[in-house]
């Protein structure tokens, strides 16, 4: 499987945030997106996840399952928000996502106990999600990545709020995913401890293509 981005550009509101970004990621490859605040890292990831329309350019999957309309259907997206309900317990949250998302072809998700253990939080799955500390919440959101199998992971500042130990644990998770032929794309300010990662440096502020409402 190969994920291809060709000449992507995207707008926020009416302004171009980045222009003509291309890359190709094969199975087992990772891409780390870096850049200063406001340079468009999150915007790029949302485009890759199919949550924002690209202004130009294409996103393709080669050698993927045939019936896929958009690579996002094979992707996990971990944004700034954790997509968990504070009122439900961790177990309820995770098993909901496991059932709702199902597995992509080519792999299968781990069960809840294993997943919670994998993020190092055994024994607190019965607590309401709202009771956890910021870092614990983030870790549980990561457990979501492995309860349902998706070959592509799109992670926006995954390690914000994580302590040093969890950092390592996270690198382990990602490396394990890469080993099984997964693809990882992560935006970050901190080193993620991935050896095999390629870098994409966003410089931001592509500026101005004339803008819709101005003289060309």
């Amino acid at each position: 499987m190969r994920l291809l981005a060709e000449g992507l550009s995207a707008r926020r509101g009416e302004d171009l945030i980045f222009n003509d970004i291309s890359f190709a990621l094969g199975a087992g490859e990772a891409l780390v997106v870096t850049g200063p605040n406001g340079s468009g890292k999150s915007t790029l990831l949302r485009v890759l996840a199919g949550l924002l329309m690209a202004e130009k350019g294409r996103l393709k999957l080669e050698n993927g399952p045939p019936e896929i309309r958009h690579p996002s259907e094979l992707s996990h997206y971990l944004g700034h928000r954790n997509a968990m309900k504070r009122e439900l317990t961790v177990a309820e949250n995770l098993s909901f996502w496991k059932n709702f998302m199902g597995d992509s072809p080519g792999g299968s998700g781990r069960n809840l106990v294993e997943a919670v253990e994998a993020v190092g939080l055994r024994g607190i799955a019965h607590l309401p999600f709202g009771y956890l500390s910021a870092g614990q919440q983030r870790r549980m959101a990561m457990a979501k990545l492995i309860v349902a199998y998706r070959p592509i992971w799109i992670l926006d500042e995954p390690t914000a709020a994580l302590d040093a130990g969890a950092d390592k644990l996270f690198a382990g998770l990602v490396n394990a995913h890469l080993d099984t032929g997964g693809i990882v794309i992560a935006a970050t300010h901190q080193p993620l401890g991935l050896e095999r990662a390629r870098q994409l440096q966003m410089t931001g502020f592509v500026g101005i293509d004339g803008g819709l409402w101005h003289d060309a």
Partner: protein
Amino acid sequence: MIALFLRDLKLSIRAGGGAMIGVLFFMTVVAVIPFGVGPDLNLLARIGPAILWIGALLASLLGLDRLFQAEREDGSLDLMLMQETPLLVTVFVKCAAHWAATGLPLVIAAPLLGLFMNMDALAIGATMLTLLVGTPAITFIGAVGAAVAVSLPRGGLLVSILVLPLAIPVLIFGVSAVYAAIEDPAPFLPPLMILAAITLFFAVIGPVAAAAALRHASD
């Protein structure tokens, strides 16, 4: 999908209680009307079905605005947008869960309130039936409003405003079906059929429109 239905039910029972407040509001509305019209039992019986319908309409609007907003705020909406299952289906299931949590209790509470309004058994039965058939339509219409307002920080009332005019046909046919049932000459079935048709129509159109709006709202 069953997972989604159950989760939404659980959430509405557990937190903030969409379920109860609807019924409570319904009762409040119905309880207040006699103060307005005075204790004239005949009059009450006459306007009873209309009042029940209006009360149900207003009660099902409460909380509808948070249908997608809550999902958006914690990021769940993003994940739902990304899945293979058509968004349409997700929206439909969420509507169904919302109706089961707020609409169904209204239908069940209706007979009790019908007694307060001095309606006879036939009228109560007819009202209950029309409510059962008609309230899902309101939820489906409301879903469109909720989807449109999803990115608005305080979209609450706006949803109701967008929704109410569209809900007028439901109200008209619901009420007229009940009156047709009470007053003998008029046939009961045609308006009920129309009501059912409206509900089916919106059960299709609503999720489609809501899904489209959600797609465009994501940023």
